[in-house]
């Protein structure tokens, strides 16, 4: 059926789309809001009605939409009997709940949010019921957890609500995650994640070695959702939610999802020993335990909650039996439970709403105060107790019948006894609910005077109560067809048609039922003493245990994080180093090395001297690093030696660059050290120093070994090409420079951008510092009193006047020759900045700054832009970025000279370097001026010629007088 296929996804989507509306239109009023919530629900229900006939006739409506075929996750929907049953329940009860909630919620509650959450939840449930893809089902499954979280926590001002919501989400979420694993295993056994495919591979799956893990994982999901022992504890605490939520979640929807899932998977998973023992046992325990606790709960909703737990146990047990008949009974009981439990919740809500209390011990005699409510509640409760002729009786009878045939843990007797006890307890709490709430003496101490609520609020429970009776009286007419198709869907058509009727004759079930009813009444009579016993018996409080568990996990996590991520970068680095060494060796051990192919170069004595110097200085830094100034000087020595090494090993460019960069770096560090402590205290204990030393030595040895091993082996490299093409294609004889500005000009482009960013960063940082708390530190800065008094010595100033222009000229020279001989824009930029630095040192930063010709920001900017545009200029010629061009020109009478675009690029480098270094110095010197250094007005401390003038002036004055 094409049309129906289209309708199915629309039906699922309707609540989600509708969910947007109430949240947005709450200002339009509560009625409008409720109406617009009801509309999508109603529409969905109508769509369901359109599709229902097909299903009732034994057909299946399917729809397939590709979503993520790569994974096998598709939006495939299937509406069969089971789906129809659940979808109908979800939408039908949903509609009733919407109506009920309209009257239940007070004006203070944000109703728009509520309806939004409700529709989201409804959509998610609907999705579960009609998914034909287990991954899609998982999506909806987790969505129910999330949306129920919102619903349960709806009254966010109540701590119980928040805790209940968190607990519900944690438990069901955990189950959902387990189920993900289970479903993935299942899908992999079956070869598809499509439910319809999986359903056909039941035998294969049950035979698979992965059956048991899959079963356990999926059951974890189902049990947590359906609040089965030992995960039952979350459900009662979810009762903090507004009653409509409880009524919806705990009668028809949320908790039934687990049951639904077991029913869905029944053809695939059921029928094995494992299934039988796990599922039926858990169900049985839950049933009895839930009923027992329910009997002693004083809160109406808590009582109902545990009764729900108990009934869910019952359903689980039935499904666990694994026989088609038991499954059919389960389906039937699902319907019945829905009708009476939703009714009861709503009634409890009405009682709460009217009397402002839900404590049974404070209630009583409400039958006369709110007769209609009482009538409805009594009908529903009797049904729950299994009193004929109500629907609860029938399904309970059938359940007991199934129990009587079941061979469990070595016989039928154990289960018969336990089930009867469960039924007995169930009867007892039902009677208690009725008796202690509605009958007995009328009390006058209610916080609020109770009376029957408006019709709108009663309509929903009343309707359901009518259903309770109707199904009880005409089971095959009303519930028969749907039970048939649903159970057929569950059992995969193996179920025989069941004729639903009230009277089956005197069967073992009937006897058990009578025993249970009488026993239940007896128990209620004994309730007072039993209650005392119950209260005095210590029993584990699941919620407390859970919360303590969460708290322990939380604290342990915090502890773990605090210990591991404690902000100790030193330790992070130590771990980093050790890991690198270990992993490096591990990687090496998988390979080997070719025999050495290179001989060793000789070591002349001079190199040995340099080596000694380097090593001694290095060792000295380690031992003397606490005196920072000394350490800096030693760094200079190391820099000098490294440069020497580069000179010796035929790398003049490197030597030039290294020595200039070192100088500038050391100077920057010196400037910074001015504000830093001058000494490093010895803080690490010796053991730590030894440890660090060991790590360091290991790392050093590893790196040395690595270097040594490749130094002994030859390899052919790509640089032959560079040597061959440097002059021909790059126009320069200094291959290193041609590589820098041409072959790998893009690297250089990146490198100057790094410098530019560094300049901007430092500038921005200084701005931040001067506007932050650091500025106070600086303003209170005190300089040592014994500073030397000559800031700008005459000799230095004069020498600089000559030195600086020469240094600038050297910079220009180095810049211009770089293409053919060692040098280039970078070194030139540094030389130029060293020249300027000289001037700064001589006459002070402020004085020099006032006379500068260029702005450093602009230099960086222009540098990067010039380099970039030079590169982009190649586009004009249709060539790629950074393609260079060069030519040789002669202007008579001069000799031939070369012009290359690479030089323009180098100019960009030059400008950026100069600008960046200067901007760094500028930023730093601002700190000093902020700290109180004054800017001098004269280039030197005292120009001696002024002494002469001053003397002359004095003489003049003398003469004048």
């Amino acid at each position, binding site marked *: 059926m094409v049309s129906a296929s289209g309708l199915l996804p629309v039906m699922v989507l309707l609540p989600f789309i509708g969910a947007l509306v109430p949240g947005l239109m709450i200002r339009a009023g509560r009625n409008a809001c409720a109406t617009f919530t009801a509309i999508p629900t109603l529409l969905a229900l109508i769509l369901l009605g359109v599709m229902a006939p097909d299903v009732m006739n034994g057909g299946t409506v399917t729809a397939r939409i590709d979503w993520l075929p790569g994974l096998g996750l598709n939006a495939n929907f299937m509406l069969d009997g089971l789906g129809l049953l659940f979808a109908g329940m979800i939408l039908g009860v949903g509609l009733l709940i919407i109506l009920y909630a309209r009257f239940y919620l007070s004006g203070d509650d944000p109703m728009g949010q509520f309806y939004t959450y409700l529709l989201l939840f409804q959509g998610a449930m609907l999705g579960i019921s009609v998914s034909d893809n287990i991954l899609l089902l998982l999506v909806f499954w987790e969505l129910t957890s999330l949306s129920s979280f919102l619903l349960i926590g709806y009254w966010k001002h109540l701590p119980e609500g928040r805790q209940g919501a968190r607990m519900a989400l944690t438990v069901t979420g955990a189950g959902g995650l387990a189920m993900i694993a289970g479903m993935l295993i299942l899908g992999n056994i079956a070869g598809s994640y499509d439910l319809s495919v999986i359903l056909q591979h039941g035998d294969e799956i049950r035979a698979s070695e992965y059956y048991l893990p899959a079963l356990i994982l999926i059951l974890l999901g189902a049990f947590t959702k359906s609040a089965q022992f030992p995960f039952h504890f979350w459900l009662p605490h979810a009762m903090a939610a507004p009653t409509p939520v409880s009524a919806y979640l705990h009668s028809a929807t949320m908790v039934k999802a687990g049951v639904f899932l077991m029913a869905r998977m029944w053809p695939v998973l059921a029928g094995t020993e494992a299934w039988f023992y796990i599922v039926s046992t858990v169900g049985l325990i839950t049933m009895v335990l839930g009923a027992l606790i329910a009997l002693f709960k004083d809160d109406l909703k808590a009582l109902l909650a545990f009764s729900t737990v108990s009934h869910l146990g019952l359903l689980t047990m039935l499904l666990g039996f694994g026989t088609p008949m038991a499954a059919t009974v389960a389906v039937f009981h699902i319907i019945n439970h829905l009708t009476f439990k939703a009714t009861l919740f709503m009634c409890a809500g009405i009682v709460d709403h009217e009397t402002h209390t839900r404590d049974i011990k404070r209630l009583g005699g409400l039958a006369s105060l709110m007769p209609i409510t009482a009538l409805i509640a009594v009908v529903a409760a009797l049904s729950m107790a299994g009193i004929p002729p109500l629907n609860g009786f029938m399904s309970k009878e059938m359940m007991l019948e199934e129990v009587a045939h079941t061979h469990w843990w070595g016989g039928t007797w154990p289960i018969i006894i336990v089930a009867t006890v469960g039924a007995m307890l169930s009867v007892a709490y039902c009677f208690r609910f009725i008796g202690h709430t509605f009958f007995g003496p009328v009390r006058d101490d209610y916080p609020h005077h109770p009376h029957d609520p408006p019709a709108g609020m009663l309509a929903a429970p009343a309707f359901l109560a009518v259903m309770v009776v109707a199904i009880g009286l005409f089971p095959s007419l009303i519930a028969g067809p749907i039970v048939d198709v649903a159970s057929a869907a569950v059992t995969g058509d193996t179920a025989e048609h069941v004729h639903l009727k009230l009277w089956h004759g005197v069967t073992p079930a009937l006897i058990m039922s009578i025993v249970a009813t009488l026993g239940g009444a007896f128990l209620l009579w004994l309730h007072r003493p039993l209650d005392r016993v119950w209260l005095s018996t210590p029993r584990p409080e699941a919620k407390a245990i859970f919360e303590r568990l969460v708290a322990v996990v939380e604290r342990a996590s915090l502890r773990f994080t605090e210990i591991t991520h404690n902000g100790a970068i030193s330790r992070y680095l130590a771990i980093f180093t050790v890991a690198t060494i270990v992993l490096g060796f591990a990687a090496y051990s998988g390979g080997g090395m070719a025999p050495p192919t290179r001989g060793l170069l000789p070591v002349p*004595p*001079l190199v040995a*001297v*340099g080596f*000694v*110097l380097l090593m*001694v*200085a290095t060792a*000295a830094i380690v031992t*003397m690093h606490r005196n920072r*100034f*000394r350490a*800096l*000087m*030693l760094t*200079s*020595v190391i820099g*000098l030696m490294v*440069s*020497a090494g580069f*000179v*010796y090993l035929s790398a*003049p460019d490197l*030597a*030039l660059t290294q*020595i*200039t960069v*070192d*100088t500038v770096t*050391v*100077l920057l560090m*010196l*400037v910074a*050290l*001015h504000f830093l402590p001058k000494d490093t205290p010895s803080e690490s204990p010796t053991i730590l120093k030894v440890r660090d030393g060991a790590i360091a030595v290991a790392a050093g040895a590893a790196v040395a070994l690595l270097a040594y091993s490749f130094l002994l082996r030859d390899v052919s490299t790509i640089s032959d090409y560079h040597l061959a093409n440097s002059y021909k294609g790059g126009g320069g004889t200094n291959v290193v420079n041609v590589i820098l500005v041409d072959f790998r000009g893009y690297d250089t482009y990146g490198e100057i951008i790094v410098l530019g960013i560094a300049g901007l960063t430092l500038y921005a940082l200084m701005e931040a510092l001067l506007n932050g708390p650091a500025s106070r530190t600086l303003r209170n800065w005190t*300089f040592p009193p014994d*500073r*030397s008094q000559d*800031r700008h010595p005459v000799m*230095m100033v004069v020498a600089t006047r000559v*030195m600086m222009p020469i*240094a600038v000229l*050297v910079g220009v020279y*180095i810049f211009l020759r770089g293409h053919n*001989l*060692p*040098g280039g824009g970078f*070194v030139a930029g540094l*030389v130029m900045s*060293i020249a300027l*630095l*000289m001037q*700064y*040192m001589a006459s*002070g*930063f*402020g004085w020099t700054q006032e006379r500068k010709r260029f702005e450093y920001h602009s230099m960086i900017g222009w540098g990067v832009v010039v380099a970039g545009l030079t590169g982009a200029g190649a586009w004009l010629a249709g060539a790629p970025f950074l393609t260079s061009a060069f030519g040789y020109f002669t202007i008579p009478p001069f000799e031939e000279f070369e012009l290359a675009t690479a030089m323009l690029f180098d100019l960009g480098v030059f400008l950026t370097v100069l600008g960046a270094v200067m901007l760094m110095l500028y930023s730093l*010197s601002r700190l*000093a001026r902020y700290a109180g*250094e004054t800017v001098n007005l004269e280039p030197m401390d005292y120009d001696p010629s002024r002494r002469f003038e001053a003397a002359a002036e004095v003489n003049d004055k003398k003469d004048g007088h």
Partner: protein
Amino acid sequence: MITYAIVFAFACFGFGLLGTLWRMLAGPTVADRILALDTMVINFIALIILYGIWQGTAIYFEASMLIAMVGFVSTVAFCRFILRGDIIE
């Protein structure tokens, strides 16, 4: 003969390097250390020039020139640090 002369000079300046290193580590005053660094730089320039003669190339000339320049700047900077704290006030 030049070879011997160069080797001799190498030896002298090499010894000088070691001496300056010793002085730098031993001090005792900060001025000694800075002086040691300055002397080291100068010895070093001499060595590079010698190496240039040895190799018969002028390609290392820039290196020695730059080292002379930056050596001066850093010596002054180290001194100014001790004298004033702020080297570019």
